[in-house]
């Protein structure tokens, strides 16, 4: 049986752990550890900060949620991680010094799996720094010849992360949400009343 998964990636502090916690059905398992006195100076090179969560679906199916910082030295893990991937959620935070460079770095790191599957980009920390704007992110994606939804998100807000994942899925199959019965061939009602969308 295939092990289906959604990959959450992005730099440290972008909100991966928080985002997985927001939608996972189990408390997320994370290897993030507080550095001890002995490892404080080594942390940057010794911790594999992986996160794990799961979405339980009916009929015993499940989708695994993996968070990975995607540092280069773990690149050997990427093909393993990509196995069964439904798509990639890239979280980029505006609170780091060069967010667009971060985006490019992660587009590069996940190039193959993004090409084979789907991508959605969530920009966090926009409540703290408005810049770069979503337009800047979109232009960066355009340069990389990638079409993907780009949303402003706060990883602490479940609706934001849920919507981002939904967009990732629709980017694979725009007809996914069609569960309505086929249209009838009856003529329309004589006067259709306008309805409120706001």
């Amino acid at each position, binding site marked *: 049986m295939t092990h289906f998964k959604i990959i959450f990636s992005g730099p440290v502090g972008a909100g991966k752990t928080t985002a997985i916690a927001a939608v996972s059905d189990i408390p997320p398992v994370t290897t993030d550890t507080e550095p001890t006195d002995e490892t404080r100076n080594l942390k940057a090179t010794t911790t594999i900060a992986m996160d794990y969560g799961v979405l339980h679906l009916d009929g015993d199916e499940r989708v695994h949620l993996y968070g990975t910082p995607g540092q280069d030295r773990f690149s050997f893990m990427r093909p393993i991680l990509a196995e069964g991937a439904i798509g990639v959620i890239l979280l980029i935070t505006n609170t780091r010094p060069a967010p667009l460079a971060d985006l490019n770095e992660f587009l590069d790191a996940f190039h193959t*799996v993004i090409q084979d599957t789907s991508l959605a980009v969530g920009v966090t920390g926009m409540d703290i720094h408005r810049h770069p704007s979503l337009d800047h992110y979109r232009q960066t994606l355009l340069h990389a010849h990638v079409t993907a*939804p780009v949303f402003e998100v706060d990883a602490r807000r479940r609706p934001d992360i849920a919507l981002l994942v939904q967009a990732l899925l629709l980017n694979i199959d725009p007809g996914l949400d069609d569960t309505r019965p086929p249209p009838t061939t009856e003529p329309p009602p004589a006067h259709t009343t306008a309805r409120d969308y706001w």
Partner: protein
Amino acid sequence: MDGHGADRTRRWTPNRDTTGPPPGGRPLPPRPTETTLARPPAPRPSPPATASTHDETPFEVPRYDPARFLQGLVATGWRQAEERGQSVHLQGPWPTIAVYPSSFAAVVDGGQDSLRAYAGQQDLPRHAGLVFTRAPLYHVNHPDMVPLDILLWKLALGASRGRLPLDTSLDTPWTLGEWPNFTRLIVTPGAMSIAALWTRQACTLRQTIHLLNLPPADVFAFYAAAAAIDLIHPELPPPPAPTTRPAASPTPPPLPAINPTPRRGLLRKVFDKLRTT
């Protein structure tokens, strides 16, 4: 690797011109078809015509004129203020709207949702007073500050109420230059599906209704909102044919098919689980 290599939907070739200039700067609202101010009301739009999708299912095509609603007033005020390098206060029998083009923001007296009751009132802008000013009345970090695109999106939904803007063709192939920032906008029924389709390939309104099996009003409402913030563009015409021929009347492209992914069942379960409303 267990990717979507066999997924035929991936092979849909988007007809967008990716070599064109990248989207830069702030979008200006589209020019309304007629000026909003100091004009007697235009005759009522003709009663809704009926149309049909390719499978001949008939549906009504109700219309509205954005220029006759607050949507048009804000778009006009925004453009005029931008041209003058000033901000503008839109005053009338509604909570005052201050528009700051340079900040791409507006401040609504009492908060943006206080406009909800007014957004659907036709010809309200006839009573508008526009006061241009160089000095912003509100502090830039005013708690009621709202990005202009979020406000215009709402005003367009309130004005459209499932109706299509005047003069919008059912048979023009449209594309969406980018995904709207849905986490900060009202997500109307079907909006994300339409965005996914239109960022991928050009599609007419008629095809969209048929392909996504959506109520026409949902498609029209999304069109109205996305057009209000200038996200929708007609598909670029193909380069002219080498031989001279009489100009053919535009024909809609053949109806594209949505090829469901082999994983649609699984993806749909995930999608449903993440529904927030």
